[in-house]
């Protein structure tokens, strides 16, 4: 940085300011909530919400990655009629408030379609299945967008060479695209999982928050704050912050290695 570059000094100051604000916001909860951590984790309610959150987030992340990997790949690699329109439609949820997404889902699953699903043994509204549906819907466009960026970085000629050497389309996709991007995909999956753990708005609209029934970790924070049980709410928040931090660190480690891998080809 130049000695007399006032602009950069101002920018750096702004950067430090927001970093300090972020650290303060996150760690104040640690200071306030840590004394109650043990009590919170021993409570049946928090144990239930952890299990509910981890279970639904894991299932929804599996579903998201199952659909997002092929969708992101085809959107990035191939030209076809209506591709731009399709891409735009898929990205709409990215810019919608999650409450709006929740209302959309609620309307859909309250319709005859939802009733049919219920009669087939798949209830969604006010049921944990709804949590998976909300998390999936919120994460799908995000995952597709991330996967498109990842696929964009792979030289398409690598797949061409693989097919030329005798690989089928499936095997070239598996061995080259998935082979090269495996760490990035793992990282995207982890971020989706972490986002699913923290999903609240759409879930609230679709399944509500019923104690010990559809109570996720963010739901538990909401319920405990509503009833003045701030200590337990903060303990749940600490848990979510720790998970988010671990996911961030792991994700950065994975993508660093993966980017190096793509570049060294």
């Amino acid at each position, binding site marked *: 940085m130049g000695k007399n570059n006032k602009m950069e000094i101002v920018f750096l100051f702004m950067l430090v300011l927001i970093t300090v604000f972020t650290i303060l916001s996150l760690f104040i909860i640690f200071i306030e909530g840590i004394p109650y951590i043990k009590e919170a984790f021993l409570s049946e309610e928090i144990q239930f919400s952890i299990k509910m959150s981890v279970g639904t987030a894991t299932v929804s992340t599996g579903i998201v990655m199952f659909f997002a990997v092929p969708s992101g790949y085809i959107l990035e690699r191939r030209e076809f009629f209506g591709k731009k329109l399709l891409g735009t439609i898929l990205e709409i949820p990215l810019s919608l408030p999650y409450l709006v997404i929740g209302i959309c889902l609620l309307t859909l699953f309250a319709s005859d379609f939802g009733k049919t699903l219920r009669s087939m043994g798949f209830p969604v509204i006010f049921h944990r299945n709804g949590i998976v549906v909300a998390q999936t819907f919120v994460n799908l466009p995000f995952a597709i967008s991330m996967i498109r960026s990842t696929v964009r970085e792979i030289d398409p000629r690598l797949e*061409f060479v693989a097919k030329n050497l005798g690989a089928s389309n499936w*095997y070239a996709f598996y061995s080259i695209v998935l082979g090269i991007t495996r760490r990035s995909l793992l990282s995207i999956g982890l971020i989706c999982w972490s986002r699913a753990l923290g999903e609240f708005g759409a879930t609230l609209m679709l399944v509500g928050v019923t104690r010990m029934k559809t109570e996720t970790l963010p739901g538990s924070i909401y319920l405990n704050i509503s009833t003045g049980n701030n200590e337990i709410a903060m303990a749940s928040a600490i848990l979510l912050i720790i998970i988010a931090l671990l996911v961030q660190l792991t994700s950065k480690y994975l993508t660093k290695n993966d980017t190096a891998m793509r570049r060294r080809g």
Partner: protein
Amino acid sequence: MIQQCEEEVDWMEDIVSIKDVRMKVGEFQLGPIDLDIKRGEVFAFLGKTGAGKTLLMELIGGFYTHYEGTIQVFSDVPVGIVLQEYALFPHLTVAENIAYGLKCHHYSKSETQKKVKDITSFFGINHLLGQYPDTLSGGEKQRTALARTMAIRPDLLLLDEPFSALDVATKERIYGQILKIKEEFDCTIVIITHDFHEAIRLADRVGILLHGKVKDVVAPGELFVRRQDNEVNEFLGIGENVDKKRTI
């Protein structure tokens, strides 16, 4: 000289037949191109950067499917391709890169190991088997890419500017290796190059490609003969006063 060469070439059957091929990529128009490549020859496409050489090679190799005209490759085995930047699979070791095609062709593990050993000995890279592509020099990457392609024993080998990233000494060594490949593997070789010396050194016939069109196909010895087409003369650096019978 030209006639003799052409008569010799005409004895051979075609391995590639290109009929009225055209393709538009953005503003660039490739073709129309009509050309036959004979089995067993080394054919060089010579042209400036942006002449459409790589695009034509990729068409022959099957990279694109949306083009006009017909390209026929008369071979039962896949076309072997070595791209300009080698396109080695970055997440696989040298051994795994070379074994890739063999695995696709369902060779057993022991057969694959033997073939990898044989081919790496031929290319002198058996000391690199456990290394990843990013740790290799340009010449080593080149030989690995060649070994990976030749492991599946293609009838037709396409080389896109294979020597452009190599130093002079390495180039000379690999020129010899290319001719040795032709002998050893009994295949047809198509080379894309912008280097006159390379075309003359390696090719049996040279196709001059300018602005997406094949302007002439000649024996290397006749490359610098003055033509009616001033664009070709200019590309080859043949001035007004050059002896029309100048040959290499």
